């Protein structure tokens, strides 16, 4: 009697490998079987695409056609360390995708591929990690980008706030698109794509335990579609910026310094949701210094402002776009605001973390 062949174990995937590990353990970052389990059962299902599924150490992507047509490569990277991980209107996962996508878009780039590196704190529930990763995958799908390579590390409990994500992105800037401070001229119009301060106040309100009649939602969104529509309406847009940390005040301040020109903005024209204004009032914060994650500032030639605004209004992420000011040759390197009562004051860049004040 011959003995039966041993079962073929080469393609065996334990049906419930993670059931033993409801929380992330250090081994999940060790590069061995636990890591593989995590990747196969948590990350791959969320990100799946032919390039990633090969699971090589690196991934080759082919952009020869775009480059041959005169396009240029654009790269960006960012780390996401937001706390809490989930907040009204978004999560660290959405920010991790949209933030990098938007950085590429600010150069006029169409985002193509992302990398995603996760630093996970020991003890994070697998379910939470799964939620975060699912959001990353969904955001990537909505943005039309593929996550083609990544990394996972686990750090000891107490070192990490749950999870940190770093994404890098590569995109193509179409031929003929050249954005930058050098193109900016006095007389150019400053446009904001929508309401300011939503993201920062959504986060602050969770931290400060504020409740709302109508919730303040983070505005995290991918803006490359909006940018493409704007460039189609006006190929000579001068400059784009996304006012994230530090808000509009920081972005405009940086532009003023980079262009060596002045910027004037009009307080009554600033698009701010009343409930966001009220929350800022309550916490003693300046809405111009509060972060946005789905908005952009555009500097456009005066003659094209109307066309650009019309194109923005036709796009889901630009419905509330409005001109908020202009570039001037006065007070170079400074941003000045005309206040509601017709006086003027300088808009400073915030020093650091905004602290709610009482008096």
């Amino acid at each position, binding site marked *: 009697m011959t003995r039966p062949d041993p079962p073929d174990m080469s393609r065996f995937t334990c049906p419930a490998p993670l059931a033993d590990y409801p929380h992330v353990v250090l081994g999940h970052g060790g590069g061995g079987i636990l890591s593989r389990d995590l990747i196969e059962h948590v990350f791959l299902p969320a990100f799946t695409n032919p390039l990633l599924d090969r699971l090589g150490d690196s991934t080759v992507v082919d952009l020869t056609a775009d480059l041959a047509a005169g396009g240029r490569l654009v790269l960006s990277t960012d780390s996401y360390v937001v706390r809490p991980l989930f907040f009204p209107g978004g999560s660290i996962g959405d920010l991790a995708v949209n933030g990098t996508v938007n950085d590429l878009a600010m150069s006029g780039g169409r985002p193509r591929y992302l990398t995603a590196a996760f630093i996970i704190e020991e003890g994070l529930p697998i379910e939470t990690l799964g939620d975060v990763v699912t959001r990353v995958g969904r955001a990537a799908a909505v943005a039309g980008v593929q996550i083609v390579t990544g990394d996972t590390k686990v750090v000891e409990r107490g070192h990490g706030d749950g999870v940190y994500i770093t994404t890098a992105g590569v995109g193509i800037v179409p031929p003929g698109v050249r954005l930058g401070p050098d193109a900016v001229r006095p007389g150019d119009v400053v446009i904001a794509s929508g309401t300011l301060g939503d993201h920062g106040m959504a986060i602050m309100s969770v931290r400060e335990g504020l409740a709302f009649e109508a919730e303040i939602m983070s505005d995290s969104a991918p803006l490359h579609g909006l940018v493409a529509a704007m460039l189609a309406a006006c190929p000579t847009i001068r400059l784009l910026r996304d006012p994230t940390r530090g808000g509009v005040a920081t972005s405009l301040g940086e532009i003023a310094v980079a262009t060596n020109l002045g910027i004037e903005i009009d307080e009554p024209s600033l698009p701010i949701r009343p409930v966001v204004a*009220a929350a800022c009032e309550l916490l003693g914060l300046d809405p111009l210094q509060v972060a946005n994650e789905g908005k952009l500032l555009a500097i456009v030639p005066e003659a094209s402002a109307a066309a650009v605004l019309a194109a923005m209004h036709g796009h889901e992420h630009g419905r509330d776009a409005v001109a908020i000011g202009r570039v001037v040759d006065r007070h170079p390197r400074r941003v000045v605001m005309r206040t509601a009562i017709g006086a003027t004051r300088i808009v400073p860049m915030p020093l650091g973390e905004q602290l709610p004040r009482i008096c």
Partner: protein
Amino acid sequence: MCLAVPGRVESIHDEQGTRMGRVNFGGVVKDVCLAYLPDLDVGDYTIVHVDFAISKIDEASAHETLRTFAELGLLDEGLAELRGEATDGGPTP
């Protein structure tokens, strides 16, 4: 000295013996201690400082103030008009 903000009392409740209210500040709703305004009622407006209601807003007084502002300068504008200084060619005396 004092970042105090106006809000509307939406509801009142007791928290371990302390009178508290849910106050709506332009859409932001917060729990506020009402211990210092025992007569404050739902629907009233109040000034709140560091989560304590310290004064009830007198709506009549507020209207009065706004009315004086609205009238400010109207007398002068009226006189200017009478003197024919208005650009739309008001009546000349």
